[in-house]
């Protein structure tokens, strides 16, 4: 990814090859962590919706579903 630059103390500075490699490595890990966070949020939303439906229907909840509504 040639041509990347940073603003360092107000001055535009081109990234070195080492800095670009470090950034690439970080962003790969960042993508993994972000996906895990997105998946967890989606699961929480699913559990919350399921918990609400079961409460209305008078059905028992799983522990994960109860966790979404119990403090």
């Amino acid at each position, binding site marked *: 990814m040639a041509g990347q*630059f*940073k*603003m360092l*103390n*107000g001055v535009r500075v081109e*990234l070195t090859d080492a800095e670009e490699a470090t*950034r690439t*490595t*970080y962003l790969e890990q960042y993508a993994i962590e*972000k996906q895990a966070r997105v998946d967890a949020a989606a699961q929480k939303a699913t559990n919350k919706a399921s918990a609400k439906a079961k409460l209305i229907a008078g059905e028992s909840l799983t522990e994960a579903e109860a966790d979404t509504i119990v403090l």
Partner: protein
Amino acid sequence: MSGIITDNLGRGTGLVKAAAAAGGAWTLITTTTASSASTVDFTTFSSDYTDFMVIYSGVVSGGDGEDPFMHLSFGSGFVTSGSAYLYGNMGRDSGNSDDGHGSSGTTKILFLYAGTGNGTGESACGQIILFDVHSTSLYQNVLLCGMHSESSGVLQPSSGAGIHKNQAACDGISIGYSTNISGKFTLYGRKLT
């Protein structure tokens, strides 16, 4: 009042000079405007100041729905790996739902709750405060407060905090997105005496 004395009251040197700033006040250090930069870095944490603050405004990411992140430096470059960062943010997302997220061991600090974008009228603004940066006994504590305005008109407020579990003096902050970052960034320092 007018004349030579009046003209020199605000100057730092000369026969008549301004009084030294009182402790406790934030002092402007530098301002920078970024346009599609990989990161915005400040590495001028002078020992003249105890705490530092970054005010950011008009910040947009290169892509939509990106999380703004920050890294800290402790004398040998910015730490972008490992699990020494912890953070937590509470806020409102683009669906007007209030919630929070965080991590107890990760590679960065996310400094807004919701992802930000670059649509019409969208931008993020806020402040990042770093306390006791020169301490070699305390973890580096960071206070986060900001917001993002969505093109749909949804307001996404956010507040949070983060730390880096390193008992070393912090000498820099790096701010960015996974694509690139644009906006205005101002660094302030605060001395206690």
